[in-house]
């Protein structure tokens, strides 16, 4: 090929690439920049490592040797009869009349295709939309941008951190998932983070003498503080971590005090049968606080996790109980969302485990004779599901997509799906995301 022809052809290809919209394998186009399906997204990382056998396959204990009882222990999320015999958990009456599966699309066989099936890896994959091939440094933020950073950087106009929240059941490395170490993104675009169990429990004593200063006193403190800060060459931007504007910070501070006060006086709505605090788990505390954040700030992007099901390493029966309780919490949260005038019919909820668990159990047997199960990267631990639930007319209702022989969707697809819902997917630069939005879920 002559040099002139090569340049000409290359130019034509480049022009066509720029002019032609990116066509997805499904044949649909990305939504135009800024076009939103709804204004609020809640992503529940239904985590702790859940097998499809106990969730969407509804096998209950029948997957274990010597047991035959099957049934659905997630009656708020999935359709199907609950188990009636060989019960190893205490059934709670569903809070939803119709399970969430009927209010959206269930991707029954999603794959966690690459990398170690570790909890932090799984969380990172779900929140960044990038597989992690190696073990992660647990003390640092993810390498690639999180969904929060994409949201805050590429929305037009840019959104306040009050609109993006990450609430985790536990501390440890999960505190670092609200922003990445990526040089083009980072804490400037990060989400607000809370671990409610610590804030509510320790805040009862740590904040019990805190007062609401009168506006005059607030002004006095701020005047002195501003003077002091003006005489120092470093700012809060030099400190690691997310930071809010002064006004937003005041709102968050008041929110924390109010929520701790509600918890201490029994005023906090709880995702338990009869609002009974004795039934609370770490997962349900996280969900209760999530609702407080949603009700107060109406965030556009909220990511929370559940994690108690990870007890499956030691106790299979407790694993089923935790799964059942978390399902109740998700149903409760959906009910709350639908009771809110701003969020109702304008919110899409996505639920997905971070990874699965092994096909074969380990040797730890619980009191019911059931064997515990780990997650060490076998094919079964890469099987997960995803559920996209939202208003009819926007989300396809009562639809199931995918099968064992025809898996649809990957763990890396949730980030582009959220970006698609909130209308900023076309604004994310090429090369960052390897997944595709789960377009089958949308009308």
């Amino acid at each position, binding site marked *: 090929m002559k040099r002139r022809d090569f340049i000409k052809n290359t130019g034509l290809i480049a022009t066509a690439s720029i002019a032609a919209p990116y066509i997805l394998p499904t044949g649909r186009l990305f939504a135009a920049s800024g076009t939103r399906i709804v204004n609020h997204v809640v992503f529940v990382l239904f985590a702790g490592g859940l097998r499809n056998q106990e969730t969407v396959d509804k096998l209950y204990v029948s997957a274990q040797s010597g047991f035959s009882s099957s049934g659905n222990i997630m009656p708020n999320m999935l359709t199907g009869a609950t188990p009636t015999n060989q019960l190893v958990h205490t059934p709670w009456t569903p809070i939803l009349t119709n399970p969430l599966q009927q209010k959206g699309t269930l991707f029954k066989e999603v794959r966690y295709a690459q990398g170690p099936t570790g909890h932090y890896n799984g969380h990172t994959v779900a929140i960044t939309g990038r597989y992690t091939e190696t073990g992660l440094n647990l003390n640092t933020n993810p390498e690639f941008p999180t969904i929060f950073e994409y949201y805050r950087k590429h929305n037009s106009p840019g959104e306040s*951190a009050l609109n993006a929240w*990450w609430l985790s059941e536990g*501390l440890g490395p999960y*505190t670092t998932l*609200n922003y990445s170490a990526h040089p083009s993104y980072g804490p400037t675009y*990060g*989400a*607000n*983070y*809370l*671990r*409610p*169990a*610590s*804030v509510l429990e*320790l*805040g009862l*004593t*740590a*904040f*019990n*003498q*805190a*007062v609401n*200063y009168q506006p*005059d*006193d607030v002004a*006095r*403190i*701020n*005047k*002195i*503080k501003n*003077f*002091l*800060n003006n*005489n*120092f*060459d*470093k*700012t*809060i931007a*030099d*400190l*690691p*971590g*997310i*930071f*809010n504007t002064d006004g937003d*910070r005041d709102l*968050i*501070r008041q929110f*924390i*005090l109010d929520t701790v006060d509600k918890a201490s006086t029994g005023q906090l709505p709880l995702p338990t049968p009869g609002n009974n605090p004795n039934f609370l788990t770490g997962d349900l505390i996280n969900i209760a606080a999530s609702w407080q954040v949603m009700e107060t700030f109406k965030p556009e992007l909220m990511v929370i996790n559940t994690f108690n099901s990870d007890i499956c390493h030691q106790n299979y029966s407790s694993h089923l109980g935790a799964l059942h309780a978390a399902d109740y919490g998700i149903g409760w949260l959906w009910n709350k969302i639908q009771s809110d005038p701003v969020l109702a019919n304008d919110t899409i909820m996505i639920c997905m485990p971070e990874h699965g668990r092994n096909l074969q159990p380990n040797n730890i047997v619980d009191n019911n004779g059931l064997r515990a199960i780990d997650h060490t990267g076998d094919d079964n631990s890469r099987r997960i599901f995803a559920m996209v639930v939202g208003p009819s007319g926007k989300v396809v209702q009562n639809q199931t997509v995918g099968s064992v022989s025809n898996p649809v969707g990957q763990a890396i697809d949730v980030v582009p799906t959220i970006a698609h819902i909130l209308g900023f997917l076309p604004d994310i630069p090429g090369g960052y995301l390897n997944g595709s939005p789960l377009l089958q879920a949308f009308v």
Partner: protein
Amino acid sequence: MKYSILTILGILLFFSCKKEYRYIYDVENEVVYESNSEKNKQKSSAQFISILYSNLFQTSISLQESNQLSELRMAVGDKQVADNLIINNYVNSAGVNLPTDADMRADIPKFVEKTYIRFYLRKPTPYEAKFLKEEIENDPGLTPKLIYAAFAESNEYKFY
């Protein structure tokens, strides 16, 4: 000759060994800064909480309380929010070691200098001393509690 050598060795032996006394002064080393430009390292959570407690209560924090507050600080993404709540709680606690408003106003320059040393481990510049002195003089509502809160929340207090 033999006796002379033995005598000299004996004298040397007698005077060469002397019990060594080790004096331990119950004073912690503290860096006194010439200026705030020397502060370029961020305090860790444990350092921040421990120093804050010492500055406000003039005693050491218990390990349990330190651990609890470190966890609490980790549980809130915006550390400014967490710090604000912790400081608010401390300066309004019963046991906090604060000068009275009358003490402050009895000798404002002394209060200003002691406050800078207490929180920043340095003396105020003449400009800083003048500003804070005038603020106190001109605002009867400005109390030691509010000034301590402002110092503890300031950016310089987060570095060493």
